């Protein structure tokens, strides 16, 4: 089970890293004759029959030949030779869903990863400081983190994002969302961190270290923080999918990335028109991608069942 989970996560990561090479088409390239086109173009050329009713058919007189390893891409079909190759169909602007999915993985995963790292650093630092210092600092920090933990995170993120200018360039949105997610995420890390450091501090080896003349900073960074690495790893696996989902939610409601940037969230926003999606289910592909990532994480952190000790 664990192996399957790791396999899934590695698969998605590789797909994201290899996006420019794996994607058959440029993610922002719009094919005017392929609006809401179904998956196709790998055997025969697709032909638009009726634009209004979004009807397409395969032109069996025009078999296409897939072009492997050309143009710096794994496989593609140029328009002149019966392309484009639409493995997962096209969206409302005739853009290739599969290519956008791969590029979207980059934005979504990168954002979640950076936010996770910052949240872990902040949480470990603040929680560690609170646990190590004790006293008033500890009291104030603990009360504060307890309070933040009660709030539903998505509302905090929503409110923080909504009070910023609504239209921003993509790079700014990336930085802003990273910051917001880290701000929402660190108290979760800090609370457990505080508890671990506070209990480790009482152990004999710390007293021994102090007696040997180790500075407080050395004790904290070299001896106490390593004790919490396992905990931090678990927190990372919890924060990462939460942040992927938060990006998807914010972009879905129109407060994340602008539509021009392919992320899993903006792609889902395109799928928000359900009467159309009923005819174009491939628009839900990013939902499947998010599911795979969350499932992968859940499989990795799953405790293996110990039923063999069960009574019945």
């Amino acid at each position, binding site marked *: 089970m664990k192996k399957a989970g790791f396999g899934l996560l590695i698969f998605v990561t590789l797909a994201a890293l290899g996006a420019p090479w794996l994607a058959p088409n440029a993610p922002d390239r719009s094919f005017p004759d392929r609006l809401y086109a179904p998956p196709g173009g790998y055997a025969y050329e697709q032909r638009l029959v009726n634009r209004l009713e979004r009807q397409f058919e395969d032109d069996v007189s025009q078999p296409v030949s897939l072009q492997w390893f050309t143009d710096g891409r794994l496989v593609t079909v140029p328009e002149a030779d019966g392309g484009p190759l639409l493995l997962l169909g096209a969206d409302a602007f005739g853009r290739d869903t599969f290519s956008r999915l791969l590029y979207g993985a980059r934005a979504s995963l990168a954002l979640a990863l950076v936010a996770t790292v910052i949240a872990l650093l902040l949480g470990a630092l603040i929680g560690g400081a609170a646990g190590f210092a004790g006293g008033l600092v500890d009291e104030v920090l603990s009360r504060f983190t307890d309070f933040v933990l009660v709030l539903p995170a998505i509302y905090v993120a929503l409110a923080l994002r909504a009070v910023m200018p609504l239209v921003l360039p993509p790079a700014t949105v990336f930085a802003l969302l990273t910051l917001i997610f880290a701000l929402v995420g660190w108290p979760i890390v800090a609370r457990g961190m505080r508890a671990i450091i506070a209990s480790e501090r009482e152990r004999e080896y710390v007293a021994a270290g102090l007696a040997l003349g180790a500075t407080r900073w050395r004790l904290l960074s070299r001896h106490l923080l390593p004790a919490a690495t396992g905990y931090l790893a678990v927190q990372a696996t919890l924060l990462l999918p939460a942040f992927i989902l938060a990006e998807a939610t914010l972009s879905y409601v129109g407060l994340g990335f602008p539509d021009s940037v392919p992320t899993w969230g903006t792609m889902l926003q395109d799928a928000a028109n359900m009467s159309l999606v009923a005819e174009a289910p491939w628009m839900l592909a990013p939902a499947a991608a998010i599911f795979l990532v969350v499932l992968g994480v859940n499989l990795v952190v799953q405790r293996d069942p110990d039923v063999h000790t069960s009574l*019945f």
Partner: protein
Amino acid sequence: MLNFVARRIAFAVLLVVVVSSASLRLARLAPGDVTAQLGPFASATEIAGTRARFDLDRSPLGQWGVWLSRAVRFEFGDSFLYNRPVRGLVVSAAGNTAVLAVAALVAATVVGIPLGVISGSRRGLLAGAIRGVSLVFLSIPPLLTSLFLVFLAAVTRWFPAGGMTSVNASSLDWPAWLLDVATHLPLPALALALPIAATFERLQAQSMSETLRQPFALAAVARGLSPRDVILRHAWRVSVRPICGIYGLAIGALLSGSFVVEFVTAWPGLGRLMYEALRARDVYLVAGCAAMGGLFLAAGSVIGDLLLAAADPRVRKAA
């Protein structure tokens, strides 16, 4: 006990005041204000009048003071977006969210707990199947379940794909109206309930298998009780304690989840109202929604504590 109750009430008041005040301040910080909704042709006097009506001409601190002095009398100002008092809007939206949340919580409990008892106390195919299914649903957060269910509804037409009532709902008499709402409720409630049911199942299963390994369970079996009696009458009471603790937290998850579900399924609840208010810079509506959300959270944690006390005599004594 009195001390405990007083502390909880103080916490609830603090939560509501801090959350609503903070969101009022936050909404004031946002670039642009409600006057942007007047359109480009509004005159200077109209803009000034609107700003005065929503106390935007005062300093943030002054506005907060005015708002707070009204709020203690349960007057939360007017909403610009709806041109109505905030109180009525927030109360009806909160009612809709509560209906959705309670339906989801009940569904999750009724499905999750019994399945957890089964998969936590048995081996074999059935337990494995339950485990696998709940692992899958654990990985489908409300955003995805609601999208998928709405998609399913749009394709199959088994359920209305969105909204809380049909278009003609205002002309219906109340039994028909209730039936109309009841046909709209299952989809969003299910979308919200599935991941929570999976969480309950996993927790109950883990807790059950741990409980059955305790000496008292072995002793009960040794005394000749049937597995059924051991599980249902003795082990379950003990194993359900950690789940009771989760209920307090589940309210937060319900509120978070209900935001996306309300958005995807067009359910007119608190999350949607908050979102609209935030976008329109409707300061008093934002603060009103936040206050109501804070009230929900406080109520959730109190209910969680009460459940815990009901399930665990040690907690009752300590309080």
